[in-house]
């Protein structure tokens, strides 16, 4: 992160300003809430805000430590996400070797590839080698019950929680210009737009949400929330063009793409949860559920964003 750039100063001012104001509003609301339901809503809101403080501090310390710090932090995020994903999707004891290899070999190696910036291997290791290896190990378990489903679950876990998430720190290896606040800029743009889209959809949904989009998957996602949230986040994205090599209208379009892929990422993860009869992936982050509940939209937007940047904007 380039500390001397005015863009960095603006970003820090805006992010911590917004968080400070949210905490202040939460404090005022908690004093004014009178009904039990009102108090519960405000308590949930404040738990979310507090969790945001922690998440923002973690992200900024990672970015401040540069490429290595960001890689380590997202390796941990990926580990916690994979843990939640495989906890929820049932496997059998015949999958033990495949799961052990996923956690302790595939995951560390993928982030090692991010660190060494060996792009060719980074991009095929999980889709090709891990994809082949997982069912190979599962056959040795000698159990045919739900064989395809079990292999697919482990493969999906690796793709979504490890492969897709590893694209976030890999953004820092892209040779794109100009980067006024350094290689942290595009990472911050991705996280701010995708997460911002979630927050704005939540706010618009609360304000005027009526028609649910897919009530079976996610009763709280409404047409009004979606349109309002996506448009707001895209405009905010366009305003953040200085973090990226984009001009304002490019930034707006890429932000729109991130919002839409992020929205469907959330919906897909929600479908997996509902199929298992659960509401949250875990209990790690207060007010948000588990790690997967917080990063579900990033899973889908990160790889798409990476390749848009690489194809249209990177030098080689």
């Amino acid at each position, binding site marked *: 992160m380039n500390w001397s750039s005015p863009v960095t100063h603006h970003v820090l001012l805006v992010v911590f300003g917004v968080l400070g104001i949210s905490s202040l509003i939460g404090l005022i609301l908690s004093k004014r809430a009178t009904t039990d339901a009102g108090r519960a809503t405000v308590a949930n809101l404040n738990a979310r805000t507090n969790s945001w403080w922690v998440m923002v501090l973690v992200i900024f310390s990672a970015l401040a430590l540069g490429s290595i710090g960001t890689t380590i932090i997202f390796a941990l995020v990926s580990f916690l996400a994979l*843990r939640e994903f*495989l*906890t929820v999707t049932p496997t059998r*004891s015949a999958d033990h070797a495949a*799961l052990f290899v996923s956690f302790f070999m595939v995951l560390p190696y993928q982030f090692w590839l991010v660190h060494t910036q060996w792009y060719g291997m980074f991009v095929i290791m999980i889709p090709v080698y891990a994809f082949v290896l997982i069912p190979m190990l599962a056959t040795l378990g000698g159990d045919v019950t739900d064989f395809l489903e079990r292999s697919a679950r482990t493969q999906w876990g690796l793709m979504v929680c490890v492969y897709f998430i590893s694209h976030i720190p890999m953004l820092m290896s892209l040779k794109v210009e100009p980067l006024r606040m350094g290689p942290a800029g595009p990472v911050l743009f991705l996280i701010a737009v995708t997460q911002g889209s979630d927050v704005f959809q939540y706010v618009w949904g609360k304000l005027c949400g009526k028609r649910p989009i897919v009530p079976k998957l996610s009763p709280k996602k409404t047409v009004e929330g979606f349109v309002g949230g996506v448009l707001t986040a895209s405009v905010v994205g366009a305003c953040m063009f200085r973090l990226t090599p984009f001009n304002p209208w490019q930034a707006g379009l890429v932000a729109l793409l991130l919002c839409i892929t992020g929205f469907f990422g959330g919906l897909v993860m929600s479908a997996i949860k509902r199929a298992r009869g659960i509401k*949250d*992936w875990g*209990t790690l982050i207060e*007010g948000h559920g588990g790690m997967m*509940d917080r990063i579900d939209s990033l899973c889908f937007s990160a790889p798409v964003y990476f390749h848009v940047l690489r194809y249209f904007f990177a030098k080689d």
Partner: protein
Amino acid sequence: MAGWLTTLRHPIDYRMLRPLAVTLTRLITGANATWVNCEPRADRVRVYFANHGSHLDFATLWAALPGDVRDKTRPVAARDYWGRTRLSRATINVFNGLLIAREGITRRDNPIEQMAEAMRAGHSLILFPEGTRSHDGVIGEFKAGLYHLASKVPDAELVPVYLQNLNRILPKGHLLPIPLISSVVFGTPMLVEAGERKHDFLARAKQSVMNLMAHTPGTSTPQSS
């Protein structure tokens, strides 16, 4: 492996390893405890009985108890399995385990009497009524020991416990654990009812463990986007 320990002038007191064992167990299993219609009580003698699918079961259940309750609670383990080597005996000692005979029971070497004695001394017990570890989360039939013990110590509360995912973290026949998240659900304490037959009681006990599956975390958390 632990042979050199016994040659020390002062034998090692395994109790000092207990806090480490608790921390390590919680780290590996990521276990969170849920109490359904049941409070942790250090002043009650109880039998915690649970489904069994992993070597981690007794350690996880024991580590999930609050400290004061845990100090008074002993996991029951099979002597023919856990008594074989010095290392396995040392492990059982760290967890304050009670070794009992599964086979070759005589009047003098009677596991029920041994357990009842520990309970009369004020200890609660952790018991796996299936008698052995099952595969892939299937809960097997309960053996009669729980019924006989309950008849012998009639004022003890029998607490059903459901252990989730431990059979996936460290399944039978595997050496290395994988880092999934497990949970321990404690249910409503029960007693043998007056005139209740052995078969009926054992079926009811098994059902009470299975009913706790619906209370594992994540199944009923309110408010999430």
